[in-house]
């Protein structure tokens, strides 16, 4: 019941029911369009019957050397379609693209410190992962985490946490 496809400009005109949610930020046009122009593979929408927008994910791939990684900029689901694991599906897709197309080393996201429901969801998500099935992966995770530990003060003046969602590829020498 969920068609996941690339996000397109016209979707901006159809996502009101998702974005009216107070935790979903409606960015300015150049923000969305920069993502579409630069990382169209990282911007996907889930559509239900009647082409209703169920939710969407936007992200990018960035970083130098070892910190080449996928980043989830926003993920959101309309109230009508919550509690159906849609966010997870969208995240998996982004991880898949980071991994297979761009060979990124990990995927992370920032979350507003005040967005407790989302933090809980990500914590659950992270806890369930098998970090490449071995201890080494855990260490890697810790090192990534410590590097990015603490709080980030972003331009939009929200205090954010960084969460490393998954480690995708090995970095030689770690």
């Amino acid at each position: 019941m969920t068609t996941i496809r690339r996000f397109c400009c016209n979707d901006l005109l159809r996502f009101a029911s998702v974005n009216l949610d107070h935790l979903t930020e409606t960015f300015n046009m150049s923000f969305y369009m920069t993502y579409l122009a630069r990382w169209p593979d990282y911007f996907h929408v889930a559509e239900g019957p009647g082409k209703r927008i169920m939710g969407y994910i936007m992200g990018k791939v960035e970083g130098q050397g070892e910190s080449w990684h996928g980043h989830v900029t926003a993920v959101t689901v309309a109230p009508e379609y919550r509690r159906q694991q849609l966010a997870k599906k969208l995240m998996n897709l982004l991880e898949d693209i980071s991994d297979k197309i761009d060979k990124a080393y990990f995927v992370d996201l920032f979350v507003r410190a005040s967005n407790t429901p989302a933090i809980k969801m990500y914590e659950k998500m992270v806890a369930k992962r098998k970090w490449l099935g071995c201890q080494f992966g855990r260490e890697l995770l810790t090192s990534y985490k410590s590097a990015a530990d603490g709080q980030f003060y972003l331009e939009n003046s929200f205090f954010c946490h960084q969460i490393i969602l998954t480690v995708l590829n090995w970095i030689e020498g770690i």
Partner: protein
Amino acid sequence: MASKFGLAGGIPERRVRPIWDAIDSRQFKNALKITTTLLSKHPHSPYALALKALILERMGKSDEALFVCLNAKELLYKNESLLMDDLTLSTLQIVFQRLDHLELATSCYEHACGKFPNNLELMMGLFNCYVREYSFVKQQQTAIKMYKLVGEERFLLWAVCSIQLQVLCGNGGEKLLLLAEGLLKKHVASHSLHEPEALIVYISILEQQAKFGDALEILTGKLGSLLMIEVDKLRIQGKLLARAGDYAAAANVYQKILELCADDWEAFLHYLGCLLEDDSSWSKENINAPIHPTKFVECKLTHLTDEVFDSCVSNASAFVQKLQGEESSNSLRNPYLAHLEIERRKYLFGKNNHDDLIEGLLQYYSRFGHLACFTSDVEAFIQVLSPEKKMEFLDKLMKNSNALSAVPTKALGQSITLLKTQELIGNMFRLSVGELEASALQMAELYCKNLPLSKDLDPQESMHGEELLSIVCNVLVQLFWRTRNLGYFVEAVMVLEFGLTIRRYVWQYKILLLHLYSHFCALSLAYERYKSLDVKNILMETVSHHILPQMLVSPLWADLSNLLKDYLKFMDDHFRESADLTFLAYRHRNYSKVIEFVQFKDRLQHSNQYLVARVEAPILQLKQSADNIEEEESILESLKCGIDFVELSNEIGSKVLTFNEDFQSRPWWTPTTEKNYLLGPFEGISYYPKENLGREANVRGTIERKSLLPRMIYLSIQSASVLHKDNSEINGSLADPKTSTELRTLLERYAKLLGFSLNDAIDVVVGASRGLNPFQAFGSDVIDWLNFAVFLNAWNLNSHELEQLGGECMHGGWHLVNSLLENYILGKVRSMEPLIHSPQGDFPMLVQIATEPLAWHGLVIQSCVRSCLPSGKKKKKSGSVDQSISSLSYAIRDAIQSLCGTLEEVAKWLQDQINSPEDKKMDNLVSSLQRNGQGEGPGQVLHLLETLMSSPNETVLGNRISEALRSWSPVDVARKIVTGQCTVLSEFCRICKSKIKSLRALKQQLAQV
């Protein structure tokens, strides 16, 4: 190139760096200072001048900036031997762009490219200029030059995109696609392709020419491997096969997609469409295609024989069953919904009766009935059922209500679904008042009972059962519509405010409240609620319809001005930056986005709401300054005396309009901006069309009429002001024939837009003013008719043609307008109840008349008075002129008297309501909720909510909810409504008083004549 040697625009970089640093940190004065020093050393450096221009522009000194830029440009052109670097040009380009002189930037680059024909950097800059100008042909030519120069794939694709844009968004014929294809073919043969996006463009070029076979060959060939996500590739393949008419192969491809993603609904629809050889889902999308397609999935079945249909459907069923069998998690809806779609097609083909479809729906409910999306999932299937069958389905469904899930949250979800299905089917309109009340009570009880489920949820998370209060509100509003008992209306407001007390983030409640407050003339409250939705950026295009139409006819001018300003700024900013983003897509080789961005910009540029706002913003300014003719004239001057708007009015008939408003979240009683069921008598409705369809003619008409206003106001002022200065000197001929002729033409147009010839329209207004057909003839176009009468009078002042057209004698035009305005306004004021007793009514209309036609009439009076007044410079007037002035001043005096009297009565009506004691008004609201003790009427739902919550149990509800409940105060809500209405009344009163004051001043001036 220059920077390679540590030079920027020919100047050592270390000297330039501090300037950029100062600009970046917005220290413009400092930046200017350093630049001035730099210029003293390099007085003829175009780059230094460009920097200076940039700084000046940032400081808001546009004229100076342009002057300096032109100076720099001149130097560049003169500079035969020195460098022509991209840094200088791009800096100039930035400034020229910000000064809205793209053409100057382009000419700089054109000149530079002419001088250095093989400089790739400059050519890219030039290409960028053409992208900004949307000059697709020149883009193509430049890209081809670059391609020829370096042979890179990306430049070829830039050219190909430019060709595609000519065909899709310009005037280019489809033959051009052949050229694009040829270019690509040649390149592929020699260099192959390396970017997935290049392949997508190649395929789309072939697809646009219906060369599906060729496209498929490429996709399935070696180049196909560029697409790394298998499903993406399959989707293209399936579409191409289907469009080529190879439905069997296409169905196989879609089957593969479904095997990979069993939950892909669109893939299933295509799969079924292909099996049934139906091409209706491949229709072309155009710019004004609706944003929300109709829910009903179009399909064609008649071309199939019984046998073919049976065999296709049995194949589809078998496949769907397989998908259902493989689905282990039980959470995928697609395979089950697919079954419903098959049943729907069978029913449409006449292969089964309703029962199978109903059975399918019941099964779907038993599996997914607890989900909030159940009703939207099944909406399209329910639509095909006859009204009786819908009821049969509902009956069967309701029987299920005894067998709810054991999991409380699921059981609640199922119960809500049952209620929402009743709403969807329109059953709520079949219930009696008593049944509706009972149903609302039941829902409120359900809400309270399940509140403990949300005990541990974060306050920001949606609570279980939140939707119930929205449905309760819907029912209460319906009860109000039926009974006109204000209590239900107030109760609907209270229920939603109660919900927001418990959790303040529910946007659905806020939208409902926004409309309830609007209807209750507490527009300031509605606007507050709107602001709390944090509507910004693109949401302004899709969501502001909730408030904009009401604000346009309200006295809250400051808020309206902000609303319009923000919206227009957003749109204009986007139009300004869109081309830069398109170039970004070019640079990052995401070619399909290039096309998309240009098409999207077109879509927004044709937005009907944008055009309305562009017309309404100046009209608001004119309304705001209407009491002061000098201010009004300077506004008109800034609007080029309305000429551009007349042009817009001329063009609008042939302009494509897009409708981007998202009406899905509108309440049932006002499904579109044009419709408000509550304004009419109760009627049973089963379907509220929430689509934008059918609005086009209406919106076109509004824009066409409204955009004539600025010019007609301007001409009316002219017509009234020139009239006596020279009138008799030219022996009775027209003093200003141009004004008169133009105004007449516009009056003719205005009349035509109202459906009449000028003569007939005059008859209508004359008839109305004499009470022959009091206002019925005006229908819903009262404002336009009154405007017409006002401008007619203004025209007559100059032309005196009205009497010839069978209308009125010389000053009869005044009488006509006076009596129309007086009769209409006083008729309304005397029959209107205080707002607190009766929502909506004629209040918005009253505001509109006072602030539009009456205000324009006031301007005509001001203009006349001004021209009557003796001025030192003028020659002494002759006797006949004196006589004419004196006769006119009588007419003006009468007009002033009439307007003043009318406005004073309006102001008194307003003042009485404002002064009425707050307690009394609040009492009126609260008492409307008092129950009559017989278990019926309004107030029961609120009472139930309050009783159940009167002593909240903290252990059951949790601390947060209990605390919220304790803070609930219906009296506060009542006070808020009273205050909200008072704000609107006071604003209107202020406007009326200002008009009275200005009219009185005119009267005094006139007394001196």
